[in-house]
């Protein structure tokens, strides 16, 4: 029982602490306290806590849970309550019946971990916990050693793995009957409003944002550095850049045939925004493109999603409608007057937009602006003025906001784009990984007759930033790593750890690609590849065949298992008798052996020995061991050669 109790407590704690931010500090602390209490009770050899105490703890615990998580995130609250209930049940459990309840409940509780993460490691962890739960269930029900039951359980789990692979591959995937709202925990490097001036430390996360797989190397080469567009911000209120109103307006682009495509596997971000290079459209269901050429989904991304991106052809609109022009040049006129004045001064000096940009660039370079992840927080309401003339250091958001604002102030339509810059390339598997710390912001400005153009002012002050992912950017490495905190990426300067990180990354990629993202589309294309196209009832037929195969398989498996395996002694005896014309079914073993002795007098002693072994095994219940087996085999061989010779 102690093993059980300890295991349960520790597993609840694991599930609580894994998605650490989901439950809040108070709940985590509560669970740790309960675990410590329980372990202390176990050390004192006490079992079961009085119900009155437990009820009190439960009430307090529920209050803490709701306070810690809030009622908005229903899924997290209910999972937390379940964990709390299970933990209390373990504390209470005294009778066999209560232990059984806990064991059954665990199948639901452990699986809750999948609500928060579906990575390979979590899957393995949950599988292990469920497996051990099964082992404990077995030992509770039947007497047996942990080792023996573990073997039994592992064999059953392996069998069910095979079954589930078959089911996943061939059983048609039905759309979800009803969908659970995902727990709101995804961290994203992108937000719908960009307000760089109020950030003192750009918190970086080394979580994966998405992966990109190029079938055609050309696309990616033509686009270096890789600017992954996600959200367009075209409203500036002096403090923040707001998301464009048209961001969620669907526009169907003309699909240009024969265009090379690439696919992206996006991690759950809990936002609808997706990523693509340049202007793009997608042929994947539920993935739509908007006026800006960025992709989005109709609902929030709560699970990993794989989608195909086709570069879209956007006609360079020579002009802009009046309201569009106004929208893209609007700024709060009374703020940042110094910056506006400076821009107007440059405007007078330059004739074209390009010249204007060159002047801006000259200013940033000459004034010694620098890139930092830990900028000073703006104190006045003229935030851009303060950045431009006083602080002179910031990250991408500062530069992009400033440049866009200044262009707008002189009537050049400009907007902010947030997305990701760079990628980590896995050479062996040929895919790009883009992490949250690759999040970036840049500017797009409009040139009549040419359309929207990209401008990355951050590159003026730190051109190295364009070379690739931030993780490879040396001058900022210290800042970058201190902002990452404790994670493998923070130690990437050690080759061994970096190697390990990349390996784990690769494993996770395969897991995401082939297991998590095996959706209806992939399934049907796989079936089509296997069985040819244009079969309307294909999936139904496949499903019936698969289920048929599985059920026959199970039937034969059960048949096979229920059949008593013939003991070695009998096998050898049959083999021996086959050398003579003995009627096996009607001759008792002793007479058969005597008959064999007459037929093969040389082997008489050996036959006698075999008969003794046979009797010991069959009639006295002793084991037919290794030595006996060897002896029997030798005997069979010698008689075999003898029998051949006589023939």
């Amino acid at each position, binding site marked *: 029982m102690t093993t059980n109790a300890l295991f349960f407590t520790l597993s609840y704690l694991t599930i609580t602490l894994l998605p650490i931010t989901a439950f809040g500090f108070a709940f985590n602390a509560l669970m740790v306290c309960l675990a410590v209490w329980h372990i202390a009770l176990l050390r004192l050899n006490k079992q079961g806590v009085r119900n009155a105490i437990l009820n009190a703890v439960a009430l307090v615990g529920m209050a803490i849970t709701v306070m810690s998580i809030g009622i908005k995130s229903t899924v997290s609250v209910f999972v937390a309550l379940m964990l709390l209930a299970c933990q209390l049940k373990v504390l209470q459990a005294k009778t066999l019946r209560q232990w059984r309840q806990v064991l059954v409940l665990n199948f639901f509780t452990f699986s809750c971990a999948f609500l928060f993460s579906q990575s390979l490691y979590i899957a393995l962890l949950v599988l292990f916990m469920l497996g051990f739960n099964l082992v404990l269930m077995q030992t509770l029900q039947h007497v047996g050693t942990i080792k023996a039951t573990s073997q039994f359980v592992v064999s059953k789990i392996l069998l069910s793995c095979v079954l589930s692979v078959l089911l996943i591959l061939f059983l048609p995937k039905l759309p979800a009957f009803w969908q659970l709202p995902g727990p709101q925990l995804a961290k994203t490097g992108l937000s719908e409003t960009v307000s760089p001036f109020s950030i003192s430390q750009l918190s970086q996360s080394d979580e994966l944002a998405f992966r990109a797989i190029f079938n055609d190397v050309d696309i990616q080469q033509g686009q270096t550095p890789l600017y992954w567009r996600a959200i367009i911000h075209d409203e500036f209120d002096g403090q923040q850049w707001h998301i464009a109103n048209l961001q969620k307006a669907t526009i169907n682009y003309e699909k240009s045939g024969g265009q090379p495509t690439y696919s992206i596997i996006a991690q759950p971000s809990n936002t609808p925004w997706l990523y693509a290079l340049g202007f793009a459209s997608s042929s994947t269901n539920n993935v739509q493109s908007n006026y800006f050429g960025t992709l989005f989904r109709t609902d929030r991304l709560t699970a990993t999603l794989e989608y195909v991106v086709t570069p879209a052809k956007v006609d360079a609109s020579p002009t802009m409608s009046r309201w569009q022009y106004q929208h893209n040049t609007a700024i709060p006129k009374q703020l940042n007057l110094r910056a506006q004045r400076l821009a107007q001064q440059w405007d007078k000096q330059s004739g074209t937009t390009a010249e204007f940009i060159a002047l801006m660039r000259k200013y940033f370079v000459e004034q010694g602006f620098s890139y930092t992840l830990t900028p000073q927080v703006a104190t006045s309401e003229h935030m851009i003025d303060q950045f431009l003339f006083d602080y002179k250091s910031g990250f991408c958001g500062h530069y992009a906001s400033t440049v866009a604002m200044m262009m707008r102030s002189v009537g050049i339509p400009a907007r902010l784009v947030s997305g990701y810059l760079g990628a980590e390339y896995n050479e062996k598997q040929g895919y790009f990984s883009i992490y949250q710390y690759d999040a970036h912001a840049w500017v797009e400005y409009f040139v009549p007759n040419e359309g929207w153009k990209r401008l990355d002012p951050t590159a003026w002050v730190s051109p190295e930033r364009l070379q690739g992912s931030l993780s490879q950017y040396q001058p900022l490495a210290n800042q970058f790593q201190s902002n990452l905190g404790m994670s493998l990426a923070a130690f990437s300067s050690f080759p061994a750890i970096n190697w390990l990180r990349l390996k784990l990354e690769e494993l996770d990629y395969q897991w995401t690609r082939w297991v998590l993202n095996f959706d209806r589309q992939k399934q049907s294309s796989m079936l089509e590849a296997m069985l040819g196209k244009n079969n309307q009832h294909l999936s139904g037929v496949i499903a019936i065949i698969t289920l048929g195969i599985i059920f026959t398989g199970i039937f034969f498996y059960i048949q096979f298992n229920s059949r008593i395996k013939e003991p070695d002694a009998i096998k050898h005896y049959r083999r021996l008798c086959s050398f003579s014309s003995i009627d096996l079914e009607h001759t008792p073993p002793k007479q058969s052996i005597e008959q064999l002795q007459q037929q093969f007098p040389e082997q008489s002693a050996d036959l006698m020995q075999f008969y003794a072994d046979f*009797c010991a095994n069959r009639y006295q219940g002793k084991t037919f061991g290794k030595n006996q087996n060897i002896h029997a085999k030798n005997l069979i061989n010698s008689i075999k050669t003898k029998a051949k010779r006589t023939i």
Partner: protein
Amino acid sequence: MNHPIETITSQLSHIIFGKDQQIKLAVCSLLCRGHLLIEDLPGMGKTTLSHGLADVLGLSYQRVQFTSDLLPADVLGSAIFNAKEHQFHFHRGPIFSQVLLADEINRASPKTQSALLEAMEERQVTVDGVSHPLPEPFFVIATQNPLHQAGTHPLPESQLDRFFMRISLGYPDEQAEKKLILGLKQQSAINVEQVIDKEKLIELQMACNQVHLAPAVVDYILALVRYTRESGKFSDPLSPRASIALGSAAKAWALMDERDYATQDDVQAVFASIAAHRLNIPCHIQDKIISDILTEVEIPL
């Protein structure tokens, strides 16, 4: 070490020549605490064998010659009025001995035969509502003439089933008969020695229970029994009592062979004497029918 059982059989072979198999079966029956029925024509040595068995085991025995006018009270005993004490006293009959030799049992009327019933199965006698336990060990060794002989009453089936074994001696071979003729004079002088005592016998009976009866052998016994029930060839198939008897006889046979495990051969060896009388097969045709059964039933390994 000379095995006690071997001594018993060798002693018995001094008085019955050339019938080792039958002697062994008779001893086997006694080891299983089973009653023995010896069926044969007159003058074949039935009585000699039963005397010898009682002598060699050193058991007290009484002999009752069954006749058509024998009454149950003559076997069991009766209450006799004691004039002095004005009370009835139970006077024990010949059945109150360790071995009852019931000679020519089928000459008695069915009423008397049935009187033996309770005694054989329950090992006690009830007269006038009072139970009297029989001594331990208690065997009935009965002899009977073949049924076709004049003046015989067939034993009821229920009683036949209570006999553990039926053996038949059959004619001796030429050598043995020659020996018989030559040794006639001394026959009265030859008396078998007692080789074991009561305690030793009980010990041997316990040893029989220790013999290992493997599942394969049990399966074989079941196969044989089921064959008699399902083949439709027998009007009186074997009862569960017969299956139990087969099991214990096989064990005893193995013990006599100085083994601590029974095999299918042991079952085959005792099958005829255990099954034939229960299946209502007359002695003179039993060999063929029994060997047919044995060849037709598969031997599970």
